[in-house]
């Protein structure tokens, strides 16, 4: 176990430096420069332009800029946003809980619907139920989620007026941010009704972000269940007269867990990509919306820092997933540490 952990950490080091190079390179090869962006229609004189670039450290040779950058990273300094003048790290962690909350709710939604759907499809294999569930799940898997989100807004928010259009909480509630997780913060605050309101705001974005994971989970649960159902001991158990329900209940749990872990591991990166689109559509103040805004507004340092922080969080999640795998299925540790 320990050796496995060390191995994994060792693998992360070159990747981490790879990402720093990508993030660092991003600013230097991007057309335009930060000062132009600041100045706007009114422009800035060439002398002042050079001066400001120098202030940002852009006048030094590249290798020196890179070493300064790495040095700063190890002091926990990922630069300052050009737009807001605030440290990038601070901005990132202020918005991170919003994305985490949305992501968790999306996964939860996917699990609650996906696992039972997969199990039912496996039990009713070959029937129209199975085909129906699998067709729906493949449709979900093929969904352009940015369009899906717009469609749901047209339907549920505009036409039926059932769900709020965007944001995390009605602005009439004054809930101080404690944890950054709105569901927790609203419970801690004394604003009555705010918890339900926050929950209400989560519904549509969670559905949109959870659609593709839901499809994947349903498909994977189905094939995992089929495998279990065909194994000898299960057949024996069924032959012995145990009800299908009990057999499934006993074995589904373990398989479900494996599926969950697999999907989170496989999907964390896709989930973040999905968060970019979902947050854009629903005006969700999280990392996805922030990073894309930073790319568009050429907030060079925010993108540089954001890329690194996002990549690092994904690496950490993947590490945790691999460790969890180890607990559920110790055989895997052995194979994985070899590759």
């Amino acid at each position: 176990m320990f050796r496995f952990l060390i191995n994994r950490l060792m693998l992360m080091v070159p990747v981490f430096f790879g990402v720093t190079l990508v993030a660092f390179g991003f600013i230097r090869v991007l057309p335009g420069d930060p000062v132009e962006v600041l100045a706007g229609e009114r422009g800035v004189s060439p002398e002042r332009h050079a001066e400001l670039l120098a202030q940002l450290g852009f006048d030094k040779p590249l290798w020196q800029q890179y070493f300064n950058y790495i040095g700063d990273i190890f002091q926990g300094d990922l630069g300052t946003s050009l737009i807001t003048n605030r440290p990038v790290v601070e901005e990132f962690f202020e918005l991170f809980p919003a994305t985490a909350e949305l992501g968790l709710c999306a996964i939860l939604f996917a699990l609650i619907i996906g696992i039972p759907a997969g199990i039912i499809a496996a039990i009713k294999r070959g029937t129209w139920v199975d085909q129906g569930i699998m067709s729906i799940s493949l449709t979900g898997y093929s969904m352009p989620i940015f369009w899906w989100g717009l469609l749901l807004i047209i339907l549920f928010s505009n036409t039926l007026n059932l769900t709020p259009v965007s944001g995390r909480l009605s602005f009439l509630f004054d809930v101080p941010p404690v944890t950054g997780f709105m569901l927790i913060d609203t419970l801690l605050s004394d604003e009555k009704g705010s918890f339900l309101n926050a929950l209400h705001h989560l519904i549509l974005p969670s559905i949109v972000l959870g659609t593709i994971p839901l499809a994947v989970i349903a498909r994977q649960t189905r094939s995992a269940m089929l495998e279990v159902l065909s194994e000898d001991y299960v057949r024996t158990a069924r032959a012995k007269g145990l009800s299908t329900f009990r057999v499934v209940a006993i074995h589904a749990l373990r398989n479900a867990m494996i599926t969950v872990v697999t999907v989170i591991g496989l999907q964390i990166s896709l989930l973040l990509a999905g968060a970019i689109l979902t947050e854009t559509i629903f005006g969700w103040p999280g990392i996805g919306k922030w990073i894309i805004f930073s790319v568009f507004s050429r907030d060079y340092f925010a993108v540089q820092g954001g890329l690194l922080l996002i990549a690092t969080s994904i690496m950490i999640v993947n590490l945790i997933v691999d460790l969890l795998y180890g607990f559920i299925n110790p055989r895997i540790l052995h194979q994985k540490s070899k590759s």
Partner: protein
Amino acid sequence: MKKTLLAAGLGLGLALSGVAQAKTLVYCSEGSPEGFTPSLYSAGTTFDASSQTIFNRLVQFETGTTKVIPGLAESWTASDDGLEYTFNLRKGVKFHTTPDFTPTRDFNADDILFSYNRQWKEDHPYYAIGGEHLYFGWMGMGELLSSIDKIDDYTVKFTLTKPESPFVSNLAMDFASILSAEYADNLTASGNQADIDFKPVGTGPFVFQSYQKDSMIRYKAHDDYWDGRSNIDKLVFAITTDASVRYQKLKAGECHVMPYPNPADVAEMQADPEINVLEQEGLNVGYLAFNTEKAPFNQKAVRQALSMAINKQAILDIVFEGAGAVAKNPIPPTMWSYNHAVRDYAYDPAGAKAMLDAAGVSGLKTNIWAMPVQRPYNPNARRMAELIQADWAAVGVDAEIVTFEWGEYLKRSNAGEHDTVLLGWTGDNGDPDNFMGVLLGCAAAESGGNRARWCHEEFDSLLNQARQLTDQAERTTLYEQAQVIFKEEAPWVTIAHSVAFKPVRAEVTGFKVHPLGSHIFYDGVDLK
């Protein structure tokens, strides 16, 4: 409260009135502020959230007009040579009390000196904090100011290096907001200088409470405001970047006021009895500039022909959805000295084709640069370019649409890489020189701000004469002549002056649209 719970649970949104006794006005703003010190930034979004709520200036624009009225200065006098301005400051003005700061004295001349010197003197301890003082530089304040002196606690004298007719209007601009010198001293003592820009303290009608990035800004009424406490107890900026989402929220009652609606949605809003759509012609112009240094745009006839080939009314209908007026002059009609007598080129594709043939231009291949961003003077440059492209194709001109990232776009068009470029301008202070001088003068052709790179001696000398004068009637005559020359020479196709629509819920009273684009929630704004 039970009713609220139920409503939230059923997903009916919240009845705005039922929540609390305090009057809370929610404004669905279009973006996050860059920060809270107006002098450091240039976006209207930032000014709405800072200078119009938290701060005051020596003089201010009257809400709803470009007229300059007393602010923190009760009165002012100018010397006869136009080089000295003396301001008498208002007494008894209180700064905000916040968790981090309790003022021990009223506003006085030290605060004026602090606020200007911070932007002006490079050795000022706060000069480098927070970044570049953009507008101070753009308005040429550094070269214009000779000295700022404190005569006594309530009298300040500004001495200029040359006469400048728009000087007092400039001081009403957002960048000239007055910060607290005492607060700055406290922050210096505690080593938290950067806080001055994030935990702002001012004298304005609203006290800053909190800001959650990309989500909301909260303010409360300033109880001791010198001009009387605001009717609104709590003010919330709900940051909502998407225009259709803002509209949906307004409709659902989740906010009371929204800026920049989609032109396409305005008709539906106007039909809604719960929404009042206020409108005002914006102080702006959107144009297409020909690069007059490049052939064949160096020929006046070609520029005129291409102007005639564009169906401006179609652009107004499709891009602005009627939310604007066709432009014929480089300044908007609400501005003094606008020449109503100027006649625009009529839409005439056949005539345009004949003129192009006469000029010997055939099979012209060119480009149209379209901005990647939405601006008040152009809600969708891409769309506008598509229409112009089709219009020009009809007269045999093949134009390719080109776009760059915004900073790059400005830089390259500044360097004159374009054939034709879409751009525009929003006025800063209501002075015609702020349009014509900055955008069409010979100096600007050299520095690049003049995207047509058009330097016309007669036009330029008219502008120079007008800049030295203080009498508005004399200046008007000169500017009117300049507009005639401009139209004849056609360095731009003047496209539109947009109308600013402000949808406001019916329960809001007293809200006025401001021509300079600010959103102001003081001055009689109330909730029924």
